[in-house]
């Protein structure tokens, strides 16, 4: 393909030929970080040490809502080993909007908004000295009324958490805690419900859950009086860390160099800052000495972003044959004490995204509560929306005696469907997923007493985003790729496979490095299931640029026209018999001689990546419920999802399994538990119960490949859709096993037992 044709495709974001046969794409080579990780050589956030380094500890508020009357840090400042103390008023004033909210959450200035809100921090010569000194800080609080529950927070008379934060779309007269209002839909809703044989409506609730990444937030920050600094940090996005820390501290972004570590999970929770700017503020106050800040698990759960808790009304119309005629949702979601953190809009958009409905209506409220500032969590909003809608679809399907997969096939969205959120779908793979689920051997397994089967579909948009990639040729013909998206789910291997395929060189001749903020232009984080999609796409185009240069040099060497050469199998060849007789010039030969043919050869590409393809999935789960204890055991679990093209199928399967495992925890156990004073009661993994290996069966996976024409190898993001169906699929399975419908997550043994006993 000519380079100008490639450029046109890149800019239009569509119409790649994705039906080609591939040599490397779709294989399962060893992961490039495998040896480092199993031998402990891989360096995570807390593994970074530098000379003269100090250690930080943070004082956190024990109240859900309080005014700070005074803070006395004098005793802490006088303690042995203490080199710096910072409080909120040490940070620059005058910020507005999202930057102000980040700063307020970094260190409270006038008020604390949730249990665990940071109010002061100490840097000392040891972690122990810092922890001891924090205890010497005296804070006087004036307690204020608080509110935790989303419905209570928007009710008349609820404590007002913040004044003046209501967005322009909020109708007059609503409680000040309602900060955003969303309403959209299409079709004649009344006519849709009138056409139905069965109309049902119910209310569903989900509790806040944490991303539960194994690696706590950790960083080492260094900042001098000249405003120049450096940070080593565990993050999904080093440029976001730079941008946000610079805003909070009033720095010039280019004066802060941020290097990402390996990352032990993030799931959206590491796309923002929590304590990172504190380490820089302490460093500046300590004369520029580097400051390490490592959160404890308790700090992670109390003070970093969980997802929203929700209260959701759903109404659906269905004919006796399963045809859905109309759907309506009203979602209320709280995202903590700052506006725009609850994923209300995305939840609404996802609610009916799997269905082809003639009439839909969505209404949503973004509500403040005295809880931590929410952060993105894997397909933000979609799992809760799926819980509500897919639970009711299942309930109606059972009432009408229909097959749950057939009903979803009958109503399923496909290419050309006007989506529930407006746009018309291009090529999507929901029906292929449902058909594959129907044919899977798990569905032939007979169920025993107290056992049940649940089905649900799920959806995520996926995202392209700002991306910059470089590649360079080594003098031995191997290739180094510089990427800006931290490898959170196998993107180094996937990008290496795409580069190997594009250049026609072995996979192990490609090394992909995740680089610091000075090495590339701006990159968005590894979020929105975009790393393999967008970084891969940019890497392919960077390779195409280098191929063009290698072809030009070979043509010049051979004394023939540039159009008379072509690139294939890792070498430049004459394009045909009329071009002349020349032996292929291999990439190794080109690398060896590039100093004499014009200098180093590299390729670069930057883009706000277009051509994103949505990903749909279908899950089927079999459970057994103990009627004596209410405990739910997962017997079998099947994930079927459209990957577009699985570049490294093992990683894709891992994403599917990981999404299901997190969803199982969300469905059965995980929740934030508060006491009457608004204090979090379970900020440790012993009490905040994520699934462990012994809780789970082997999770079966089926990769569907409906290639995305907007990516050179057909990639759709796969990281997020997998957490969407588990919540309703498990609720539906429990209903099948017990005859009881649970509409409030998590479905703990106590709740299930109560439902069984109370009917």
């Amino acid at each position, binding site marked *: 393909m000519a380079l100008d044709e490639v450029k046109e495709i890149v800019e239009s974001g569509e119409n790649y030929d994705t039906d080609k046969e591939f040599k490397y794409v779709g294989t399962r080579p060893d992961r490039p970080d495998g040896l480092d990780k199993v031998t402990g050589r891989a360096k995570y956030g807390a593994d970074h040490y530098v000379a003269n380094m100090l250690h930080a500890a943070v004082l956190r508020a024990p109240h859900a809502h309080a005014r700070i009357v005074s803070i006395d840090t004098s005793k802490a400042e006088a303690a042995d080993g203490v080199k710096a103390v910072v409080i909120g008023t040490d940070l620059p004033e005058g910020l507005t909007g999202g930057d102000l909210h980040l700063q307020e959450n970094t260190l409270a200035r006038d008020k604390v908004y949730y249990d665990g809100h940071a109010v002061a921090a100490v840097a000392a010569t040891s972690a122990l000295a810092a922890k001891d000194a924090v205890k010497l800080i005296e804070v006087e609080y004036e307690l204020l009324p608080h509110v935790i529950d989303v419905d209570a927070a928007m009710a008349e008379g609820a404590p007002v958490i913040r004044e003046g934060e209501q967005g322009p779309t909020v109708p007059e007269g609503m409680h000040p805690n309602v900060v955003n209002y969303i309403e*959209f839909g299409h079709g004649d809703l009344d006519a849709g419900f009138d056409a139905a044989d069965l109309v049902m409506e119910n209310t569903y609730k989900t509790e806040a859950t944490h991303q539960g990444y194994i690696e706590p937030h950790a960083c080492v920050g260094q900042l001098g009086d000249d405003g120049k600094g450096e940070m080593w940090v565990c993050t999904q996005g080093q440029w976001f860390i730079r941008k946000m820390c610079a805003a909070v501290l009033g720095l010039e972004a280019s004066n802060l160099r941020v290097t990402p570590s390996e990352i032990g999970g993030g799931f959206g929770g590491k796309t923002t800052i929590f304590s990172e700017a504190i380490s820089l503020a302490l460093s500046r106050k300590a004369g520029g000495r580097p400051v390490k800040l490592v959160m404890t698990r308790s700090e992670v759960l109390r003070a970093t972003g969980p997802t929203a808790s929700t209260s959701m009304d759903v109404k659906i119309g269905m004919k006796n044959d399963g045809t859905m005629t109309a759907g309506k949702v009203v979602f209320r979601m709280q995202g903590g004490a700052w506006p725009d953190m609850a994923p209300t809009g995305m939840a609404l958009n996802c609610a009916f995204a799997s269905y082809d409905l003639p009439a839909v209506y969505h209404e949503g409220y973004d509500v403040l509560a005295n809880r931590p500032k929410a952060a993105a969590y894997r397909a933000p909003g979609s799992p809760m929306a799926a819980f509500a809608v897919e639970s009711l679809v299942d309930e109606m399907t059972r009432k009408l005696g229909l097959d749950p997969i057939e009903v979803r096939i009958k109503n399923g969205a496909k290419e050309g469907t006007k989506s529930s*959120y407006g746009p018309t779908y291009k090529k999507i793979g929901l029906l292929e997923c449902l058909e594959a689920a129907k044919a899977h051997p798990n569905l032939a397994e007979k169920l025993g007493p107290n056992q049940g089967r649940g089905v649900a579909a799920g959806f995520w948009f996926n995202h392209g985003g700002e991306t910059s990639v470089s590649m360079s040729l080594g003098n031995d013909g191997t290739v180094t790729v510089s990427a800006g998206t931290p490898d959170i789910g196998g993107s180094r291997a996937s990008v290496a496979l795409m580069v190997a395929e594009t250049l026609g060189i072995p996979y192990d001749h490609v090394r992909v490095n995740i680089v610091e903020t000075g090495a590339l232009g701006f990159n968005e984080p590894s979020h929105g299931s975009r790393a393999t999609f967008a970084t891969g796409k940019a890497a392919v185009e960077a390779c195409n640029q280098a191929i063009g240069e290698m072809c030009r040099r070979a043509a010049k060497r051979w004394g023939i026209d540039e159009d008379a050469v072509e690139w294939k199998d890792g070498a430049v060849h004459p394009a045909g018999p009329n071009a002349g007789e020349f032996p292929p010039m291999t990439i190794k030969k080109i690398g060896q001689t590039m100093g004499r043919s014009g200098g180093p050869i590299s390729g670069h590409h930057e883009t706000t990546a277009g051509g994103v393809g949505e990903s749909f999935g279908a899950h089927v789960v079999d459970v057994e419920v103990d009627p004596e204890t209410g405990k739910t055991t997962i017997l079998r679990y099947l994930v079927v999802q459209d990957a577009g093209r699985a570049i490294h199928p093992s990683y894709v399967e891992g994403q599917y399994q990981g999404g299901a495992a997190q969803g199982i925890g969300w469905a059965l156990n995980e929740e934030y538990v508060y006491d009457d004073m608004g204090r979090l009661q379970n900020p440790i993994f012993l009490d905040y119960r994520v699934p462990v290996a012994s809780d789970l069966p082997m999770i079966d996976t089926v990769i569907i490949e409906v290639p995305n024409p907007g990516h050179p190898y057909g990639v759709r993001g796969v990281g997020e859709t997998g957490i969407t169906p588990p919540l309703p699929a498990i609720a539906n399975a429990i209903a099948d096993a017990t005859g009881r419908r649970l509409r409030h997550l998590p479905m703990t043994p106590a709740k299930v037992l109560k439902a069984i006993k109370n009917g």
Partner: protein
Amino acid sequence: MVEVNLWSGLRRFTDGELVVHVEADTVGKMLDALIAAHPDLAPVIEAGLSVAVDGEVITDAHHTPIRPDSEIFLLQQLKGG
């Protein structure tokens, strides 16, 4: 002219119109034209939103070209996890 589909909650800023026609050949120009035609939309657009053009959701790529027959929807801003 291109046809821009708004979400219902924005009707109050467009004299009740859910579909607005503006002159534009990129997403950025379309948003500018919306603000020019309906200044009350400015706070919502400036706070950030996503735009779906011919079925593809675009968050930041305001240089994305649009044709007179493009299908355009304004959506709440999408973020991933």
